[in-house]
């Protein structure tokens, strides 16, 4: 077990046992998803002069000794390597990293170094309390070895400082995280790092991450990203989420963002934005599929396929007549099991009118309606009994537990 803190500031000697300086840092190349091999040792020689020794000259790197294969005269030192290198002490140790596996932001207490495919490489990141003790020279306190060392696999970590968080180096695993987990990470990071991370995601993922974020953070992030970048992300968000976001922004900013939206979405958003925040109208989504009573199953399936890419989720198709009056709903399950030529009218599920919501209803009433009729989604009607949206169980949960 070798840790960076155990070798930093150790003496380095050449093959003739002559001391040539002290180890001040180690340089690696930053690449996502691999155990980075050590490339150079940064050495402070006599009179405080700093230079780098390519790692191939190193004979032994351990707690007790750092020695070179050759005499110092035969070592080709470099003052400053040309390529971009990351310095382990300066850029990684003590910095924040994203622990991709745990979906959280932690600080690097120490780095574990060891052989991987016969090369000395960085293997893991110590984020445990024991790492802290080791750093302050108090590792002996734990003489029963009661404290566990918590290592994060180097390949599963994402440094966030010094431009290390770039599109090309961003770990694949990170973008594969669930948007909700990514949102938590962005909330943990500083605003600048958070928006960098957001910018590195594709716009669809970014849109979902923004939806999952705490309103305060959301607001600051949109401001920090700037209208142009933010509008691209916002364009991919669902209309109800956009309406929510616009309500927490200042009028000027909201206007600015609205001008970037596509026409169809703009109309949906404008419709939603007039409802109070904590009412059915305010939390409902305008993304749903409507059908006509005389549609056949075949027709309906086709329409669903067409609309599907733009929808977050879909459980029912809502049936309205030509004037937009709500008739009832047909579940996708019913559609799947029905014959091809059956019409919506045959399959429609008639519920009492008290199972639909009015735009002005408050969260408590929404919950009681949805609980009473065992609904995953509830249709929202305006004063003229026309269908304007639907509230999903997900929207309700977020109102009830905003912190999760």
């Amino acid at each position, binding site marked *: 077990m070798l840790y960076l803190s155990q070798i930093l500031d150790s003496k380095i000697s050449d093959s003739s046992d002559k001391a040539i300086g002290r180890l001040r840092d180690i340089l690696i190349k930053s690449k996502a998803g691999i155990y980075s091999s050590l490339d150079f040792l940064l050495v402070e020689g006599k009179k405080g002069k700093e230079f780098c020794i390519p790692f191939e000259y190193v004979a032994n790197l351990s707690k007790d000794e750092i020695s070179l294969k050759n005499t110092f005269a035969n070592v080709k030192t470099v003052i400053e390597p040309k390529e971009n290198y990351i310095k382990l002490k300066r850029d990684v140790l003590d910095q*924040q990293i994203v622990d991709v596996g745990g979906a*959280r932001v932690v600080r*690097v207490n120490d780095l574990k170094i060891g052989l991987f495919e016969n090369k000395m490489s960085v293997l893991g990141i110590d984020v445990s309390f024991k790492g*802290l003790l080791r750093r302050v020279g108090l590792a002996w306190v734990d003489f029963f070895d009661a404290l566990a060392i918590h290592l994060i696999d180097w390949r599963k970590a994402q440094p966030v400082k010094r431009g290390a968080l770039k599109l090309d180096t961003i770990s694949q695993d990170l973008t594969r995280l669930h948007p909700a987990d990514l949102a938590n990470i962005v909330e943990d990071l500083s605003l600048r790092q958070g928006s960098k991370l957001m910018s590195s995601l594709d716009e669809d993922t970014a849109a979902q991450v923004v939806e999952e974020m705490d309103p305060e953070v959301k607001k600051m992030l949109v401001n*920090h990203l700037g209208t142009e970048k933010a509008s691209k992300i916002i364009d991919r968000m669902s209309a109800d989420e956009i309406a929510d976001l616009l309500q927490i922004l200042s009028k*000027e900013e909201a206007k600015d963002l609205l001008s970037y939206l596509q026409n169809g979405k703009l109309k949906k958003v404008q419709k939603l934005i007039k409802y109070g925040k904590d009412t059915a109208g305010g939390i409902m989504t305008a993304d749903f599929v409507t059908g006509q009573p005389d549609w056949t199953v075949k027709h309906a399936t086709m329409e669903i396929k067409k609309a599907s890419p733009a929808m977050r989720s879909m459980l029912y198709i809502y049936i309205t007549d030509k004037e937009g009056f709500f008739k009832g709903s047909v579940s996708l399950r019913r559609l799947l099991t029905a014959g091809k030529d059956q019409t919506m009218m045959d399959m429609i599920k008639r519920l009492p009118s008290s199972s639909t919501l009015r735009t002005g209803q408050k969260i408590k009433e929404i919950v009681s309606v949805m609980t009473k009729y065992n609904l995953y989604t509830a249709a929202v009607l305006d004063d003229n009994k026309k269908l304007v949206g639907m509230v999903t169980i997900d929207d309700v949960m977020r109102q009830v537990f905003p912190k999760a």
Partner: protein
Amino acid sequence: MRERFKKIWIKIAFIFAVVGPGIIAANADNDAGGITTYSIAGAHFGTKMLWILLLITVSLAVTQEMGVRIGIVTRQGLGGVIREHFGVRWTAFAMLAMLVANIGTVTAEFAGVAASFSIFDISKYITVPLAALAVWFILYKGSFKTTQKIFLVFSAFYIVYIINGFIIRPDFGEAAVSLFTPTIEWTAPFLLTAIALIGTTITPWGQFFIQSYVVDKGLGIKHYKVEKAEVFFGAFLTDIVSFFIIISTAATLYKHGIRITDARDAAIALKPLAGQFAQLLFAFGLFSASMLGAFILPTATSYAICEAFGWESGFNTTWKTGKVFYSIILLTIVVPAAIVLLPNVNMIKIMILSQDVNGMLLPFILIFVMKIINNKEIMGEHVNKPIGNIISWLTIIGILAATVALLVTSFLGYN
């Protein structure tokens, strides 16, 4: 014309959006320890300490501005910046210093609660545990923001000191002279009060608080000018209040040779304004000022430490993942409450001594701030200008010199 009018409104809205941290920090500076320290400074030494107050107003403005600048540039709390540039050992040192200072301050807040209710002869064994429980439950379950606002509004009670100050008709001429005439008594009580005066105005936690606030609000370099003005105004505001507390107690207590040994004595200063209600008014003010501090400090402490060491923080973490976060909050509530509940301790002394602890630990935190703010690698073009450096170093040296002088006079036995 209309266009121009609109622009002005946008500007005003912009200013209101950032107003906050400086004023809140300044207001919270006048907490239980603050009110007591200023009262004692005036009651025991008259207007002799006003010149120190003038100097620390400048220091407060300068140090808070530095906190704002570091926050804007690094987008990190002070704990995080210290960790990234000084490593684990120095971080542990800085965090320990802050933890001790903050536990001291929370102790003063609970002592303030005890003292304010002692005016009505309600035992501290009832009030302090209740206050500690209330703080914990509101932090854990309730709305921190609303509560903070309520006590912030309550604590604006200091305005009564300003009104009171005018009713007394103190000798403003003499006060003005004292502002510009350095007077030092080489005695332990004077030096202790002087260090407490500095330590209650410029605080380690205030340095952490202002920086975190800037980061949390997401303020950027475009907000800097407004924020700077706000911090300067905040420093001025807090010390205007301190000024009036000192001249109020100087004109009432000092004049009649009354020394402050409990909260009732300190309340006498408000008699000219409130008459028989002076005690009630003082108790109310002291209580809300204490509670405001008691709410802010445990959380602020825990956030700073967790940020520095990379532990998960925030009230949306579960007990399991946020173990350390919650433990530090509990520690900073329980230990101070326990200290206040020790039998036979004098609340006034606790409040003064805790501010001394703050004052003595302040230089160490300020040295970190100075190292950071003058580091081009961290601050880029926003490093300190010479004037800021001079004022900050003079503050640091001033406190250290006062501390040394205090130790020497204590040893030599000048009392």
